[in-house]
């Protein structure tokens, strides 16, 4: 770089002068500023529209004044008659219409209900038909694509399909389509070595058979009490086999027991005609999805709870991708969303005085789990010591000031199965530092434990509060005998990786902390809520080293016991008898301090809806069947 002495001379020769450059920049700046200044928002249009409407109304009024009185009276009579006739034709006319505004944090990874279930449910719920909904908090089944079912014998279950249903391309929804939709889940699972569908929902099934045009029979290898609940999940949506055949994407092959190989296909884009639900997909991109009413949707006669005889009231759903929680909250406060999510009790006052917001109380149902490494805590006394070293009352006072309750291995959202009272649970959850120390010192450790690392992910701030409290509580109780406690927090993926790392017999943490216990939901299946966390064939194995082949004898023996107990309760179809078996399983888990222990949880949670959304079925949002409620409607004047 060097300076040129003949500056002005050089400047004159240049095709772009400094002046022209600066003038050009100035003009561009002014132009851009003008554009920016002129930028309105969507509200401008809204403002313009009422103005236009007012102008039109004024013109009409002027014209009306000029018109003869008789004409006016006649017109008014005609209008009143038309309104009355419309109301008689459809008494729910004022409920119909509108767009439901929803949000989700990410785009979907695919729409095939047999492969993915994350960030795609708004499309699957709305464009596909499911057998029915099950609401565990109400213990209620409401029929959708099915009209009935019957347990013919302990291993045969028969479904009756609603007549007159059609896929969006006009193909009939028949028993072949339903049997195909149910049967493909295991095939996909096996071809892909795992999908999001819960395998325990079909692992006991030998076959799904179309016995006549509208009847499907399930033949089971063994009885299963949860089968009807599993079929309520959206994985079991009715999918058009012809569309899969014509547009399917090859996912893999698997070998049948007789040696034949079958190829398996998915439809990740849900091409037209895949579903038979009340809406069709009209938009799907990085900003979100939109579904709109399908005019040929079948009738629900008679309509069960949450359904409407003549299709849903709402015309369309617009789902925005909002990755950030603050932005979502702002959009909700601004009235841009009809459904928010659970609201932290401490945040509830922020919503006070907002007319368009409706905060409702729902059951808490959360979980705050502390998983213990069975590679280190194989002696029951060591696990018991940890639980005795925790100050439960102090925890409730510090972390759950708005209402805390003790939690059992099964969610309190399953009243049909949860028979342990708060008094019962208090017997197991008792803070006793002296006994904790005695138990710890008496316990056998094959791998010495001087330091307890509480391992958590950085997802929720409350998680850190909980882990911190736990570390302090343990250090206070076990500190005098030389045991220290610390918290390590890492990102979600690293946390998951180290949680299930089985490269050695022991984990590189002692306690795996997960769940904040402030809110939760349930499918209605005890396995999902939350026996899977104790199961030596599931998380008990890969996350907590509590499994059948454990090199620690006590763990291996206890694994065999709990597997038998879990199988027995799952096979018991009588609800009362099953509840008794589930109480036995829970008691065993609590007595053995098996695998995980649950910290006290919030007794209530709050959920945010817009005040224009009616009949939203509050409990449905806890039961994971939210948005399948076709009787939701939007108040026009709210």
């Amino acid at each position, binding site marked *: 770089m060097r300076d040129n002495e003949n*500056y002005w001379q050089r400047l004159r020769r240049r095709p772009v002068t400094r002046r022209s450059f600066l003038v050009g920049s100035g003009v561009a700046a002014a132009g851009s500023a003008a*554009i920016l200044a002129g930028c309105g928002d969507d509200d401008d249009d809204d403002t313009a529209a009422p103005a236009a409407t007012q102008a039109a109304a004024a013109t009409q009024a002027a014209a009306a004044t000029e018109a003869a009185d008789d004409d006016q009276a006649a017109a008014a009579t005609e209008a009143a008659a038309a309104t009355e006739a419309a109301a008689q034709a459809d008494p729910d006319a004022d409920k119909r219409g509108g767009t439901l505004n929803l949000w989700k944090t990410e785009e979907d990874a695919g729409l095939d209900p047999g492969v993915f279930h994350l960030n795609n449910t708004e499309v699957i719920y709305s464009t596909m038909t499911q057998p029915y909904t099950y609401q565990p908090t109400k213990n209620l089944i409401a029929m959708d694509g099915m009209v009935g079912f019957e347990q013919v014998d302990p291993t045969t279950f028969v479904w009756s399909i609603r007549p007159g249903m059609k896929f969006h391309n006009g193909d009939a929804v028949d028993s072949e389509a339903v049997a195909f939709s149910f049967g493909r889940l295991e095939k996909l699972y096996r071809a892909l070595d*795992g999908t999001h569908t819960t395998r325990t929902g079909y692992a006991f099934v030998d076959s799904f058979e179309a016995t006549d045009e509208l009847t499907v029979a399930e033949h089971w290898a063994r009885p299963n009490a949860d089968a009807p609940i599993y079929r309520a999940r959206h994985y079991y949506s009715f999918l058009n086999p012809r569309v899969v055949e014509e547009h399917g994407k090859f996912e893999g092959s698997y070998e049948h027991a007789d040696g034949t190989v079958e190829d398996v296909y998915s439809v990740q884009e849900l091409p037209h005609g895949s579903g038979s639900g009340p809406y069709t997909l009209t938009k799907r991109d990085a900003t979100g999805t939109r579904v709109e009413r399908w005019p040929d949707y079948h009738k629900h006669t008679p309509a069960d709870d949450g359904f409407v005889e003549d299709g849903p009231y709402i015309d369309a759903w617009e789902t*925005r*991708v909002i990755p950030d929680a603050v932005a979502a909250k*702002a959009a909700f406060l601004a009235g841009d969303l009809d459904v928010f999510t659970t609201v932290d009790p401490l945040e509830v006052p922020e919503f006070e005085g907002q007319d368009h917001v409706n905060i409702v109380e729902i059951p808490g149902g959360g979980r705050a789990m502390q998983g213990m490494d069975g590679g280190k805590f194989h002696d029951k006394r060591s696990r018991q010591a940890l639980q005795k070293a925790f100050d439960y009352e102090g925890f409730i006072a510090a972390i759950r000031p708005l209402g805390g309750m003790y939690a059992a291995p099964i969610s309190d959202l399953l009243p049909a199965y949860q028979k342990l009272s708060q008094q019962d649970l208090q017997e197991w959850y008792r803070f006793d530092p002296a006994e904790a120390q005695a138990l710890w010192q008496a316990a056998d450790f094959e791998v010495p434990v001087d330091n307890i690392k509480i391992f958590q992910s950085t997802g929720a701030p409350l998680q850190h509060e909980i882990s911190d409290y736990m570390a302090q509580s343990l250090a206070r109780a076990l500190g005098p005998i030389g045991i220290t406690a610390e918290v390590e927090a890492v990102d979600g993926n690293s946390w998951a990786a180290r949680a*299930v790392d089985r490269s050695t017999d022991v984990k590189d943490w002692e306690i795996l902390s997960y769940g904040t216990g402030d809110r939760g939901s349930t499918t209605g299946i005890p396995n999902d809520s939350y026996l899977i966390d104790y199961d030596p064939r599931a998380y008990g194995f890969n996350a907590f080293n509590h499994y059948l082949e454990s090199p620690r004898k006590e763990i291996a023996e206890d694994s065999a016991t709990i597997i038998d107990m879990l199988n027995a309760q799952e096979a018991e179809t009588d609800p009362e008898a099953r509840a008794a078996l589930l109480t036995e399983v829970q008691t065993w888990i609590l007595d053995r301090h098996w695998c995980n222990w649950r910290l006290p949880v919030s007794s209530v949670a709050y959920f945010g809806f817009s005040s224009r959304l009616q009949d939203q079925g509050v409990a449905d949002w806890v039961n994971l069947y939210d948005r399948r409620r076709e009787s939701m409607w939007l108040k026009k004047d709210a």
Partner: protein
Amino acid sequence: MTRYIVRRLIAVPFMLLGISFVLFMLLYIRPGSAAFAAIGSVGDADPRAFEKFEERFGLDRPWWEQYGDWLWGAIQGDLGERLTPPHDDVMGDIIEVLPNTLEIGLLTIFISAVIGISVGVLSAVRRNSILDYAFRGITIMGISIPNFWFAILVIYLPALWWGWTPARQWVVFTDDPIYNLSLAVWPAVTLALASAAGMARFVRTSMLEVLFSDYVRTARAKGLRDRSVIWGHVFRNSLIPVITLVGLQLGAVLGGVVIAEQLFTVPGLGRLSLEGVTDQDYPVVLGTIMVFSFVFVLVTLLVDILYTVIDPRIRY
């Protein structure tokens, strides 16, 4: 000049190679796997699913093979496929969202330049006045406030007070330019706050240096009006370091875009990059960072070229 540009352009691939290597190694040594994000339900999934996933995407191979494959593809314009379903083409995803990020970036630079230069000039011309003190105070605040925090306030407080929020459904420029600008201006303003404040202070200092130079004194002595002195002599000559700053600020803007896009729900390169980091999807992270780096390198080159336009005394 041409030789200089060619030399700089030749250096670009080597810079990108270095950046990609360091980035790949950082991602490689991080614990965990994209399989967790892709497969998710670890309790119920068959453990073979993880092995099969790693095998399918070559994650079980040594790092040099993985990196080598990625690099060879990148040289041919193929940035690979996403590890997370639905396994889209990374280049396709980048091309789809890049215009949104560039729009916000350019808008940010424009706003920060307009505000920064105006405030800086006014502050310098009216030095030690109340206006100068006020501007200096405001600029200190602007530099001190983290842009993510400012963005949260910009999004949340209007919603709480007036039932309106700037974080609305994104619409691309080609669909509705006016509405699109009304959305893009907010993340741009948020990001421009710190840049404008920094630039205002820089312009003020630069202007003050020139204001006391001999040729300005001469200009005044020969009776030129203040306006001619300020705009004709002082401003022009204090512009060169400002141009450098504008170029360098692009780096900060590109960094800020990651957070701004997330908060203002803009489907852009920053959000894509953040998704890649969260999912440990290394082709996405490498692809997006390569684009960010390339843009940054290109802009610094443009700034160098621009010097010769602003001040023809400068030669390379």
